[in-house]
């Protein structure tokens, strides 16, 4: 393995800008790495050899012309629910298996503008619906820390790519935890920004009022650089926030002095088991040791988050996915009349989880149930958001577990509801639209394996600088990310 693939985004950008290494060399190393390991990891649905090389060459030309690019030559993975002009963009669904996007998502374009080089389109749970990547119709992605386990989801492909050193940055999207959970499972930093901070234009919608693009990286600094590149107002997205973005990469801090960090009363650690409990207790102590004062905060409605989410997100998705009808693009099953064509196309094109969510959402919106389900969920959402607003009057940040268990074995969760529970700790933040991240916080031993855990940090709206700054201090003091690399990093190859 080339040492180049071990480098993070900050280091790569520094060196490419200084012409100590070329973007092309970095891209070739990432592509070679993908060739070497991706058959086993399955992070990418497609590796973009030509585009990567061409883009890298253009980055080198820009650098040669004297441009200073914040992410010069940084290889990144693009979750395959984001459009990149001229490439297949499938959402890991049969229904889009052969669709080529004729335009580029704004967030992806911003990464390209910042000098990033796309290595591949990464796997996900179909239409970003899932927490393990197992709902992909187009491939299996494995956790680089244990190839028998899931990488998390839905941004599992991007997480696995970054953890396996097939990219330095992964672009993910988070609707109820789809960046934070795979970040935790793959020992990465994963940030879900404030809703509206990163443009959704070109992100294939799952649930419009919740979807948010964010970075996955091996360090907080890299995540901050990527966030700074992708965030900002986009006139193509009506929900994009117009206000200035506060840069985060320049706001990284090394201590937490003066910060009050809220520990959520409703998230007790006992149910997580002894091992996780002690890991999170240690994490909270580490925050304190960095100068933070811990305070108890209440999120009384948090326990209703899951129920709220599983009405709102499916309701929105039932409409968002109506456009996949076999008329203008995508796969199609012929039939004698258009109605039957729709029904067969969608029956063949969508996997079971997508169908379940479309059905539940359709039901929640249907005549006679709308008020009891959809409207009630929207009101519950108000309460969840108020909980956070109130909590942030007594603290600056909130800390909690990112997941309720370490990465689990492929196929372990066959019941849909047990999978939905995976997002228990991350959903309330999505409902409230507040920024939240997962940062590596230690390890759990399970079945003879050492598995990564993530600490979730949450901030008020638009306080990404504070959030990433604090995560940076925690990361610097604990260095969990670096203590154990995935077995794949060893040249000898694969465990189990």
């Amino acid at each position, binding site marked *: 393995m080339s040492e180049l693939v071990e480098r993070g985004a900050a280091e790569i950008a520094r060196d490419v800008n200084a012409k100590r290494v070329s973007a092309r060399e970095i891209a070739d190393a990432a592509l070679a790495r993908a060739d070497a390991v991706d058959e086993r990891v399955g992070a990418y649905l497609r590796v973009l050899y030509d585009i990567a090389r061409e883009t890298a060459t253009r980055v080198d030309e820009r650098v040669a012309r004297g441009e200073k690019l914040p992410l010069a030559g940084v290889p990144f993975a693009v979750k395959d629910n984001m459009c990149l002009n001229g490439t297949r*963009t499938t959402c890991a669904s049969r229904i889009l298996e052969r*669709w080529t996007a*004729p335009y580029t998502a704004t967030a992806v374009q911003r990464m390209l503008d910042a000098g990033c080089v796309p290595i591949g389109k990464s796997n996900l749970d179909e239409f970003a619906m899932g927490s393990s990547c197992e709902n992909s119709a187009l491939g299996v992605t494995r956790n680089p820390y244990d190839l028998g386990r899931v990488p998390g989801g839905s941004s599992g492909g991007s997480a696995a790519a970054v953890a396996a050193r097939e990219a330095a940055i992964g672009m993910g999207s988070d609707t109820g935890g789809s960046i934070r959970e795979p970040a935790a499972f793959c020992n990465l930093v994963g940030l879900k920004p404030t809703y509206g901070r990163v443009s959704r234009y070109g992100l294939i919608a799952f649930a419009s009022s919740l979807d948010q693009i964010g970075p996955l990286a091996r360090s907080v600094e890299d995540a901050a650089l990527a966030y700074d590149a992708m965030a900002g107002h986009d006139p193509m997205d009506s929900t994009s926030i117009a206000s200035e973005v506060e840069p985060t990469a320049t706001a990284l801090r090394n201590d937490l002095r003066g910060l009050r960090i809220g520990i959520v009363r409703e998230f007790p650690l006992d149910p997580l088991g002894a091992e996780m409990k002690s890991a999170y207790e240690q994490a909270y102590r580490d925050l304190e040791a960095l100068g933070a004062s811990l305070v108890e905060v209440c999120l009384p409605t948090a326990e209703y988050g899951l129920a709220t989410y599983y009405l709102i997100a499916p309701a929105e998705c039932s409409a968002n996915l*109506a456009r996949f009808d076999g008329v*203008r693009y995508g796969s199609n099953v012929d039939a004698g009349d258009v109605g039957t064509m729709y029904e067969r196309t969608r029956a063949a094109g969508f996997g079971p989880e997508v169908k379940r969510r479309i059905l539940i959402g359709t039901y929640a919106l249907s005549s006679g149930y709308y008020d009891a389900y959809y409207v009630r969920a929207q009101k519950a959402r108000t309460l969840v958001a108020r909980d956070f607003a109130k909590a942030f009057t007594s603290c600056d940040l909130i800390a909690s577990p990112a997941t309720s268990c370490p990465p689990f074995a492929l196929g372990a969760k066959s019941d849909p509801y047990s999978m939905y529970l995976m997002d228990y700790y991350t959903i309330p933040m999505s409902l409230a639209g507040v920024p939240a991240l997962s940062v590596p916080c230690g390890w759990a031993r399970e079945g003879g394996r050492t598995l990564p855990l993530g600490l979730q940090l949450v901030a008020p709206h638009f306080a990404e600088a504070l959030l990433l700054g604090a995560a940076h201090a925690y990361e610097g003091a604990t260095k969990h990310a670096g203590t154990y690399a995935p077995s794949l990093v060893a040249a000898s190859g694969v465990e189990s």
Partner: protein
Amino acid sequence: MSAYEAVVGIECHVELKTRTKMFCGCTNAFGAEPNTQVCPVCLALPGALPVPNRVAIAQTLRAGVAFGADIPAFSKFDRKNYFYPDMPKNYQISQYDMPLVVGGEVRYWLEDGTTGSCPLERIHLEEDTGKSTHAGSGDGRIAGSAYSLVDFNRAGVPLMECVSAPALHGAAEAVAFLASLRRTLLELGVSDVKMEEGSLRCDANVSVRLVGTSQLGTKAEIKNMNSFRSVHRAIESEIDRQIALLEKGERVIQETRGWDEIHGVTHPMRSKEEAHDYRYFPDPDLVPLEISASDVERMRAELPELPWQRFERYTGRYDLGAKQATQLIDNPSLARYFDRVVELSRNPQQSTNFVLGELSRLANDTGTPVADSSIAPEALCELIALVEGKTINSKIAKELVERMWAGEGSPRAIVEREGLAQTSDPAAVDKIVEDVLARNADVVADYRNGKTSVAGYLVGQVMKASRGKADPQLVAELVKKRLGAS
């Protein structure tokens, strides 16, 4: 007299005249090559998002203000869910419970000049669908077609839906309502409102009830009406059908019926979605709209004179007939011209005579609109002044209009140059009369033998001898006087 009365409500969809579509930057123009005015947004490509057109919102609000409606402080867009091949997202972005415009009324007038008003329930903003052409059925109809071809150019064009209260009594009122709505939207410049191009489409809800009762009867919704004339015929035919049913002791059932232009009847039409469960919910891709009272005030202040106001001015202050007033209102450039002439001349009657008379005839004959002709309102006023001051008579005036139209310039200059001023000097005119009578001794003899009708002929001869310049009244007087003297 019929024991039944009709109650009609109109729902119409009006395509707004914007440069671009409702939620994307594709051009909004009629008649482009199929599928050339499409983009990721209006084709509902994966990942595309809508951003509303500021002008379309402003136009809808302006229409609302013009109809005297309330503009709620808060409004939002909703998704209306149903599958149809020419609707790319398989939901329509529309407005459900918080439309941009609530209430208001359309004031209208009938051919005989009586005026009326129909309350509006609401006006909301939505997006149009694409256009399907049905093939294989021979007649282009959907029933029996083998397949359909879809053009998405129209998908996403801003569409304003206006819903009237069921408060129109019969076909004539319904058409008058539509005509007034159309004139108002034209005046505001927010739509071309052309039924033949589909920029105005309307459905009618028709029911009948016994005269003297107040409860509404069961309604039928009539679709497929492609002109004002077909609206009129369809409503009349439907009213007749419903009355006939009731008179036979049968019931009217609530349904959608299509108008068959050829056979002149409505026929039952099943809906396109078997289950009408539109599952409206707020569109999470769009943010709410807040409209301030001051914005509404400003829009109100900026309204032009509206067609019904103009109708009242013309028929009231200017004493025009309903037909003349309508003629002017339906020709905005002519009306502007007319208004300017009245303003300058302060003589509505003469202005009407010239503008709707000679000028309109010339415009018709030459194909040049009056407003674009070489007769400026100022020049016409000069002419009116010449007539008013009896400097010229009406015959000369007519001749002058033709010459001015041909570009000969100021009427006063022509009159002066060619000495066309009316001869009103009694002595001079009497001299001509004397000459003419002398030359027509036989006619004079006829007169004196009791054939008094020849006087007119003699007056005409005098006018001719004066080259039209003599004051006709004076001529008549003097001819009579000389004939009377024996």
